[in-house]
């Protein structure tokens, strides 16, 4: 029998299937709908987590002076314990600083793309008679905009020619003072006037200004010494190797050994890794639930197929008596199973989209689901593929058995 005719008879079988078969299709529908809904929740969650955490900059490395061997050591490859990528080394010994020579050393490392030198301090800031103390960071205006993970909400980043200008955190701009601060407003920092050129899209009270200005504002810090050096490396995948290289070069130039090391190298990689891990475990969990739902659907299809083949045993006998080959019977039943999967799948996707819509309005308040639910094309394709293929797989065994029946045995079946 031609394939098109097998198709005709298979779909005819679906149309004329008993109530029981339709009830099993309902089982598939629910399975698929659950998968679509759950996956839409997961995708929404993922979207909102990644939009909240933003790009952490896995290729950013920070060097700070001082090294505390008491801090958490993350044993990396090689297991020397000499590398700590955490940012917890706070025991800055007074005599150790970072300076120009370190920057010169770093400039010789080709794996480093950008170098930003920072100083930090707490400063008095006032606006319209109100004042408070906030943290000030002096940055290299030429590179900071390319290296920072902060985003500008209003105005612009710093650029090379900037002098008496600052960029301020979102909270400082909006609610810190009696009146919100806007672009081009002047604020007073340690009795000097600065113009605001940019407001960050965050909720901090930090102030950023060109490092040359910061030296004049922040007390007791020597020009050409730095509180931290922030690096952007060429290739994030080579992070570990690059950090080892930086460490070796700095130890040589600073004349220290791994025992007397007086600087700390840290990266965001770890935080990012943790976040990625969290995301993938959420994903894994969702996939597990989805898999279970689809499995239930697949068992439903298998059940339908078994009963439908049993119901059709006599018809199989008739078909064989009038010329059907085993292959024809096998084809008809496999196509039938695939169609049941397809119908269940399509109805399931539609129900799933409805469900996900109503779920979205129910959970819109919670933090991690601010993104609502997102029905991705991938989840629809996945659900349909699985429901069709599980239909076919589940139909394979009974279809094969049906095709192998002796015509006379099938005919006698009541």
């Amino acid at each position: 029998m031609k394939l098109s005719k097998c198709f005709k008879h298979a779909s005819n079988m679906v149309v004329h299937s008993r109530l029981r078969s339709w009830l099993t299709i309902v089982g598939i529908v629910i399975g698929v709908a659950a998968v679509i809904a759950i996956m839409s929740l997961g995708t929404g969650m993922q979207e909102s987590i990644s939009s909240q955490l933003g790009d952490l900059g896995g290729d950013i490395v920070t060097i700070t002076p001082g090294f505390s061997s008491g801090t958490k050591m993350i044993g990396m490859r090689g297991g020397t314990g000499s590398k700590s990528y955490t940012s917890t080394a706070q025991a800055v010994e007074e005599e150790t600083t970072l300076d120009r020579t370190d920057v010169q050393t770093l400039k010789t490392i080709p794996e480093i793309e950008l170098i930003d030198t920072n100083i930090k301090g707490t400063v008095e800031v006032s606006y319209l008679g109100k004042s408070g103390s906030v943290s000030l960071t002096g940055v290299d205006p030429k590179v900071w905009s390319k290296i920072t993970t902060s985003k500008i909400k209003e105005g612009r980043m710093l650029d090379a020619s900037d002098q008496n200008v600052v960029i301020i955190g979102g909270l400082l701009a909006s609610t810190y003072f009696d009146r919100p601060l806007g672009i081009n407003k002047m604020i007073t920092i340690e009795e000097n006037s600065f113009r605001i050129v940019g407001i960050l899209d965050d909720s901090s009270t930090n102030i950023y200004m060109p490092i040359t200005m910061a030296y004049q504002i922040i007390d007791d810090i020597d020009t050409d010494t730095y509180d931290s050096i922030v690096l952007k490396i060429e290739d994030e995948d080579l992070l570990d190797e690059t950090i080892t290289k930086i460490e070796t070069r700095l130890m040589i130039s600073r004349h220290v050994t791994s025992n007397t090391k007086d600087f700390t190298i840290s990266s965001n990689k770890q935080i990012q890794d943790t976040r990625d891990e969290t995301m993938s475990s959420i994903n894994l969990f969702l996939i597990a639930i989805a898999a279970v739902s689809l499995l239930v659907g697949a068992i439903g299809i298998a059940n339908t197929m078994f009963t439908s083949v049993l119901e059709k045993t006599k018809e199989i006998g008739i078909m064989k008596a009038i010329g059907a080959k085993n292959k024809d019977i096998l084809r008809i039943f496999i196509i039938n199973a695939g169609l049941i999967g397809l119908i269940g799948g399509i109805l399931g996707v539609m129900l799933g989209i409805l469900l996900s819509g109503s779920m979205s309005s129910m959970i819109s308040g919670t933090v991690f689901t601010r993104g609502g639910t997102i029905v991705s094309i991938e989840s629809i394709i996945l659900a349909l593929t699985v429901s069709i293929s599980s239909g076919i797989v589940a139909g394979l065994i009974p279809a094969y058995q049906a095709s192998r029946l002796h015509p006379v045995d099938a005919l006698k079946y009541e």
Partner: protein
Amino acid sequence: MPKKIPEQKNKDIILSLDNVWKIYRMGDVEVPALKGISMNIKKGDFVAITGASGSGKSTMMNLMGCLDVPSKGQIYLKSKNISNMKESDLATFRGKTIGFIFQQYNLIPSISAFENVKLPLEFMEYDDQTAIDRAKYLLDLVGLKERMHHTPAQLSGGQQQRVSIARSLASDPEIILADEPSGALDSITGKKIMDILYRLWKDEGKTIIIITHELSLTRYAQTIAELKDGQIINIRQNKKVNKK
């Protein structure tokens, strides 16, 4: 290796049973339904197989129709030993050569009379138009042109049996095998069915094999075989019936 069984050569013999046994096994008990049946059916013959209930008529018909395999012995269809044939080849060969009519009609309930008649042609991969024309022609032949889009449930028993006759003729087979074709019908309707079969034999030259326990129906047949306890106890020619 099964020993090679010689193919039969006699052109006049269309169907031949050679010492055929059918033994059903029910647990440890063996039930012999046919015990060494040998019979040659000539092309163009009208054969009636009679016998009491349980004598093995249906078993014999299933074997003659290649719907079942014998426990012992050989069956030759158009000189071909069917036990040597592949499943798919046998299915096609059987479909082309034999048309079945069952006591319980055995139509596919979910499709129309027309679709039922067309179905064998679809299995035989006839092209669509030929299949459609042939199905219409056959339904017209059995007088059901008006009812062709009815499903079996919408037809009377006699009408359903006529559909099944039309279906059995679909691929223009040389042999029609009918197991109690009028068994489920009243005598008048049954007679109409028998008349159609008689006409097919007489006008179209089909080889007709019917199974019946009604002795009155044997008057249509040219050859009458009587079964008892799985054995043929008598084969006789009916002189009164001839093809003219």
